[in-house]
């Protein structure tokens, strides 16, 4: 069953106007279509200047994360039938906007770099591979499903106030390697996440958990990181 939806989109076209404005578009969509389908229809048939990121359109690449009706979500994973008739769309909060719904993710990816997002193991590699048992893999299974869309970090009030804060996404990545039984850089990793803008800034607000399109309980992982840091004596302070 098709129905008309009003897309209220926050526009920012720096070449035309340095300030933002709200544009409205009426789009006919059926109940199985998603916000992303609406945006594509607008771009193709109403206003070609509308700019947004999309790639896989199936909840895997994480490109189309945006603020939809006051909460971060993936446009490709949000069915219009689950939303009211007026759909308000804004870019992800707290990141610099490049154009319309496209934000500059440099700051976000830079945080990821800070937590050393690669396996560190100086031991000589075995003949075939570093074996990981299914049980060991299960320990990090939830954290490896992260698609790095940025919904969590940009929904976090701590990040809004402190742009240096590592944020839920990078901390989840730190967890993914700290709890990987093949990794040997526990101390180096804990050092990286227990600084002034690290794990202790998390106040268990759960905004990240509410928005994660992969339904990862990020706060649970961050709390485990805090307990590990205490156990290993990395309590921050003058570090």
């Amino acid at each position, binding site marked *: 069953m098709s129905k008309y939806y009003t897309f209220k989109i926050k526009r920012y076209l720096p070449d035309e106007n340095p300030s933002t404005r709200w544009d409205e578009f009426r789009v006919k969509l059926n109940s199985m279509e998603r916000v992303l389908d609406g945006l594509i229809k607008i771009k193709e048939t109403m206003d070609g200047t509308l700019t947004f990121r999309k790639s896989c359109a199936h909840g895997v690449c994480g490109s189309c994360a945006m*603020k939809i*009706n*006051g*909460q971060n979500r993936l446009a490709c994973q949000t069915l219009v039938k689950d939303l009211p008739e007026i759909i308000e769309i804004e870019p992800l*909060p*707290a990141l610099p906007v490049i154009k319309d719904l496209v934000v500059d993710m440099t700051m976000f990816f830079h945080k990821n770099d800070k937590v050393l997002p690669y396996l560190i193991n100086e031991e000589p590699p075995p003949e075939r591979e570093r074996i990981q048992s299914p049980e060991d893999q299960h320990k990090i299974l939830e954290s490896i499903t992260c698609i790095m869309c940025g919904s969590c970090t940009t*929904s976090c*009030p701590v990040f*809004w106030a402190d742009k240096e804060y590592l944020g839920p996404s990078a901390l989840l990545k730190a967890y993914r390697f700290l709890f990987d039984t093949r990794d040997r850089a526990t101390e180096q990793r804990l050092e990286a996440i227990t600084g002034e803008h690290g794990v202790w800034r998390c*106040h*268990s*607000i*759960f*905004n990240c*958990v*509410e928005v994660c399109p992969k339904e990862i*309980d990020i*706060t*649970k992982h961050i*709390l485990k990181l*805090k*307990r590990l840091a205490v156990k290993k004596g990395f309590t921050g302070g003058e570090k």
Partner: protein
Amino acid sequence: MRYRWNTGSLAWLVHRVTGIILSLYLIAHIYVLSHLKDPVAYNKLMAFMKNPLLKIGELILFAIVLKHVFAGIRITLLEMGVSTKYHKSMAYVGALLVFIVWVVGAFYFFREVF
């Protein structure tokens, strides 16, 4: 910036706001008490504190203390390893306990005044 409120973020906000109010209250409280060196002035203030309007103020303060305490207990339990699955239920149970303890406390407050 507007962003949708959730149980977790509301619990955090209330915890913060009550914390700030209590900090300001404690500063004022200690300042006033530490400057009351004269027994006559002290007794006068204590008599003034019996005013029913001030008792209502104390009841509001009591509610703020309780809300802050139970929010703190919830966060401490989460930090200590209680499953995050229960974070919403813990917030609701906390609010209920605040109400129950406050009602019981208010009963004793009023019994003293009237």
